[in-house]
């Protein structure tokens, strides 16, 4: 967490130094982390129309385009998520994971206002016992998230099949919205990063 954890490897973008390596054995991400990171980006794409373009653009601005080079390389990184239809069966390295997390959190920060609005709307609808369709923008987000999820995740996977209904996917989308809110904070990136390794360290 402290400064001495900043990577001194030449050619490593400095910004990655804000995230220390977790005390895990190998240099690849645990399974749950690859799922979480991909889903978080999926939620951003459901919030922002040109989400995947924004991911590439932000990677460039943050000088992370050595890691996230183009559409194909982004697609490959995200398909390390084992739930994907086109799962790559390769691991996501810690460096790649850091880059994705940093880009995702920056995008979330840009969407702070919208995220707060949607979460407040969600809470109000719940209090009034109304369905999500009553809020246009929230409904829009949920619809897009469901479509993205269904078109990209492999329904043969148990975790996907069990969460394929509209209700389950809405629940997931709203959970992710909450996660995104916490990513927007001063230490949001770090908090999200560490949570990815919960239960993975000895």
């Amino acid at each position, binding site marked *: 967490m402290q400064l001495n954890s900043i990577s001194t490897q030449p050619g490593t973008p400095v910004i990655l130094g804000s995230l220390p390596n977790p005390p895990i054995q190998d240099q690849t991400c645990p399974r749950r982390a690859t799922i979480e990171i991909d889903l978080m980006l999926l939620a951003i794409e459901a919030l922002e129309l040109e989400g995947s373009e924004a991911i590439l653009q932000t990677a460039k601005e943050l000088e992370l385009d050595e890691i996230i080079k183009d559409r194909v390389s982004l697609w490959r990184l995200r398909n390390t998520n084992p739930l994907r239809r086109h799962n790559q069966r390769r691991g996501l390295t810690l460096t790649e994971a850091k880059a994705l997390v940093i880009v995702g959190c920056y995008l979330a920060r840009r969407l702070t206002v919208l995220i707060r609005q949607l979460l407040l709307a969600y809470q109000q609808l719940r209090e009034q016992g109304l369905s999500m369709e009553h809020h246009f923008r929230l409904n829009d987000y949920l619809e897009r998230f469901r479509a993205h999820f269904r078109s990209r995740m492999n329904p043969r996977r148990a*975790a996907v099949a069990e969460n394929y209904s509209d209700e389950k996917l809405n629940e997931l989308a709203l959970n992710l919205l909450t996660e995104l809110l916490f990513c927007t904070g001063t230490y949001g990136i770090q908090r999200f990063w560490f949570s990815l390794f919960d239960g993975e360290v000895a």
Partner: protein
Amino acid sequence: MTIQRLYSLPNCTLLLEGLGDVISLGQSDARLPMSMVINAECRLAGYEKPLSGGREFLDSLVKAVSQYTQDLLSGLNTTRAANDPAQLVQIQRLSETMHRLRVRSQTEGSSTPSHTTEIDLNTVQFFDLVEAVDQLLADAQTLPDLTLNLKPLSRREIVRERTTGQQIVPAAIGVSGLAAATVLLSLLPVPKVEPPKDLYPVRGQTSQTTSTPSPTTAPPSPTNAPTAAATPAANPSPTTSASPDLKKLEDTLAKSPEITDGAQLTTLSQQLREKLDQSWTSRSAVTQDLTYQVGVSGDGAVLGYKPVNPASLENTSKTPLLNLVPRQVGTASAPLALFKVVFTGSGNVEVAPWRQVMTSPISGISEITETNRLEAILPKLTSQINQNWSKDPMFQEELIFKVRVKQDGTVVDYSPENDAAARYAQDTPLPKLGKPIANGNTAPIEEPIALFKVVIKPPSGALEISPWRGWQN
């Protein structure tokens, strides 16, 4: 001189009053560091009375907020803070959108009964509290000893606290559907599949090695199903009973670590070929190619084998394999080299490292990789695709496909290799030319095939075709 610090967010303000330990040396305008806190006051929207206390309260607030946020993000455990009654501040999840902050007032003596304040916050309000805390932690001029202190929860903490959590707060379960499902899933063994050198997964019989019980009611691992179906050996067959130890022999292949060192593989490959060649006495009985996956230990001993086509399953007795494998199959975990062995109908033995040769493990058909042959096929593929557009391309992104083609240019099958390709496959000429490769699609192919990478570019559908493994030099 007292110093004040204010961290103000829409739903939460955190006010600190404290002292600095350095005497100001005329730098009246400089922001003095606060090294000691006298009073911390936290005002939350909707509650007139602020929460307040000294350093103990502040430390406890920071800790509770940090832990709870981490639980919220990982979705793994929602009761950790509540488990520590010594803490002044505790946070508990009430519902998807509500979070309860419980603050015990500091008691001066044991005689005073402690008073607990409860404040319910929605997610956005709670986030503002987290953000106020984070701004304080990030502020190096205020309580520099108070910094962000995060670390991932250990495996042990998760497991232990999940069980106690279930007993204490049953209502807290079901908080996040997929998060929980994801955790359960992450406890299941990851189906071990060969790296995708092939279009078909090679290894169907993944051994369930972990003892983790699966509380889900679903079949233990439906994800194994497609790959298992891809292995003919897994099908019940009358001849299986003739060689009862086949299952064990296959298990040997599946469970042992693999030798991948190139030089060692070459040596072992030669040894294996000689051994098989010498001991194969019933050559004339073999009328068609029999293909096996054979596992060999580091010292060259044959440890196990697996028939990869129906003929090889039925005709194992006509090969020397049964005589070479050990009678007693132990739980071998020694490193193992995998080879593709073909006993040809013409009486030859072919041995090659498994990973290098397999295109279609089902048929044992070799792949076309020679440059001149690929060059001959490529234009045939190009013209077929170009001639079969039925409508104008509508897609905006590049579509990438893996396409398997016969020597004469006939498309056998194809698989989309990016999301756009999966979405727009039906709009391309490919469905007319071949069938999609499904996981369970194992129809054997009778002749060698070539693998191509086909990239279709917007807006006009321009083609870029190259051999899947690049051009040979």
